């Protein structure tokens, strides 16, 4: 019997054999690993519920968010929640989160608020990614003084506490939801520019970029066809985490009266309107804040999961390293 020395040595791990026998794309591996993490699943569930609520808001919410219930139902201003299952008398109208200061159904307003928070998150991050990626790619690809100027401007932006800078920008542009979005977007541009620049710097030196150059491709084509797709992963991960902080910042701006204005059912603005009633009607502060927390938690958990799933350092033993 001939025994190959390699057979007895077990040099190749079972994981490696499995991967070698079944060719899988890196993205597929990453997605599989994402779904193996409990925290990421929790994040996905939270975001799924949030998206469903936002899409089906008119069916989920029992009332229109701006509908004043005076003369329609016998309810008091700022009445606490009345839930039939929890012992609220059946002859009184059910309001899961109570009634707000303008005699509107708080639950319906919180439900509609999910639309705003999703739009805020995606719009401001989308804006920041587009601008930040552009400048980061330019800085990384061209180098020299262009790189220096762009990155020093980014340094200055980073030297300000983000929320204060956002407040200042909104003060210049004027209060309002759109301007708050722009301000949050501008404040987060440096993060994307830095990540993109770093990615471009590493991809720039690869052979396939050199090949494109040799074939005579122009700079824009190289940037968009060769460099950008290879630098997307860190951007997606950062973007998911940044959506969480964008939602928090937008809520803070609205809370300070600089973002969404009443009667918009935006969570931060709802909280701000009722904050002086926290001792008498805590439910009007509690529920919008809880909604913000769960949304932000969802994006944070998903972002963490994506980061770990895409992290090449955790490629083999990754599943057991972090929770």
């Amino acid at each position, binding site marked *: 019997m001939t025994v190959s020395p390699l057979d007895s040595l077990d040099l190749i791990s079972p994981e490696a054999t499995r991967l070698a026998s079944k060719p899988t794309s890196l993205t597929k591996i990453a997605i599989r690993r994402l779904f193996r993490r409990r*925290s990421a699943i929790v994040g996905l569930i939270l975001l799924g519920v949030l998206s469903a609520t936002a899409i089906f808001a008119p069916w989920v919410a029992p009332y229109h968010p701006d509908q004043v219930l005076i003369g329609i139902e016998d309810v008091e201003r700022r009445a606490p929640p009345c839930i039939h299952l929890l012992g609220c008398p059946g002859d009184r109208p059910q309001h899961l989160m109570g009634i707000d200061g303008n005699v509107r159904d708080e639950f319906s307003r919180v439900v509609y608020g999910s639309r705003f928070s999703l739009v805020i998150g995606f719009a401001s991050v989308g804006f920041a990614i587009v601008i930040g990626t552009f400048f980061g790619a330019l800085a990384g690809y061209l180098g020299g003084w262009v790189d220096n100027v762009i990155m*020093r*401007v980014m*340094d*200055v932006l980073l*030297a*300000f*506490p*983000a*929320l*204060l800078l956002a*407040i*200042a*920008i909104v*003060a*210049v542009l*004027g209060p309002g939801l759109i301007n708050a979005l722009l301000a949050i977007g501008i404040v987060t541009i440096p993060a994307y520019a830095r990540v993109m620049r770093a990615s471009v710097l590493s991809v720039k030196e690869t052979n396939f970029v050199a090949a494109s150059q040799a074939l005579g491709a122009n700079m824009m084509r190289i940037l968009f066809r060769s460099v950008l797709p290879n630098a997307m992963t860190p951007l997606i991960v950062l973007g998911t985490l940044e959506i*969480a902080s964008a939602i*928090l910042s937008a*809520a*803070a701006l609205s*809370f*300070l009266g*600089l973002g969404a204005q009443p009667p918009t059912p935006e969570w*931060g603005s709802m*909280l701000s309107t009722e*904050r002086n009633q*926290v*001792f008498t009607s*805590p439910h009007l*502060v*509690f529920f*919008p*804040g809880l909604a*913000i*927390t*769960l949304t*932000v*938690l969802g994006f*944070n*958990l998903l972002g*963490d999961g994506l980061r770990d799933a895409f992290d090449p350092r955790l490629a083999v033993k990754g599943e*057991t*390293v*972090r*929770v």
Partner: protein
Amino acid sequence: MISFVIRRVLSSIPVLIGILLVTFALARLSPGDPCTALLGEHASPSVCRDFIARYGLDQPILTQLGIFLGDVARFDFGDSIRYQRPVSLMLVERLPMTIELSLSALTLAVLVGIPAGIIAAMKHNTATDVTTMVAANIGVSMPVFWLGLMLAYVFGLLLRDTPLWLPPSGRISAGLTAVPFYEMYGLGVGPSSPLYNVFEFFSNLYIFNSIITGNLPVLWDVIKHLALPSMALSTIPMAIIARMTRSSLLEVLGREYIRAARAKGVRRAKVVFKHAFRNALLPVVTIIGLSLGSLLGGAVLTETIFGLAGVGRALFEAITSRDYPIIQAFTLVVALGYVIVNLIVDISYTYLDPRVRLE
């Protein structure tokens, strides 16, 4: 070591100049003129003309910039347009409040965050670990203003008449006065003295002042008033510090030299605290420095909720009412504080990691 510090200080100068320019530009880019913003819609044109001339707002923009830079160099920030008082005086009154708040929040964050991270890493993949990280994830996801309001509700109202009651607003109870230490010890510093602002600044650090003057009832009262705002403000940095400590420590604990130390028979606790912790501390220190930015942003919100007259609140009010002198001075102080803290963080690297000194 000294050359490293000097180089580091010099490299922050361009950022500081940038901060000065941005501060100046932001204040002046605002649409609408400061006259109607401050004196109201009905201010007559002649009143406005006087007003604008008095604050030099009719000068060419470059002249205004020159005047601004000259004033900054002399630490003369002029008078607040809204309050008609020297900005430096307002800084002396308000900065100590924010310093006390930020420092106590940061202390709380470090004192809870680092041990939590260590415990989570040592009990890796156990229920303790999972619970800590779930708590940390919720901690970074809570809006500061919401947490502050809920804490005020729970500790200020629900726990009223229990020993756990904490005051939900203000800095010191009505009826208590903190006698400034320089008056108590008769240092003879009057409002005309050049040292007055410095002494006033330190006496407005209530905790410091009450310790120096030995006034324990005031000290206890001030600490109780600081408790809720600090708790609210500390959650986000606390959660970030705990997560960073855990992941950094886990990474270090996986290294060869740790296994070698364990193999030669060093006790686990000693390995963690003596061999691993110091090496794991580097990213944690970086995060602590960076979280100061979120502390200052959070200070705007915490000071609003808890009715504290600090820098954050003053800056917010000045930005929305276009009070240029306050915006410029306070932003500068905040950004300066940020730069200084990051400087301290960088210098602490040289202590934590000797390799940094050689670069």
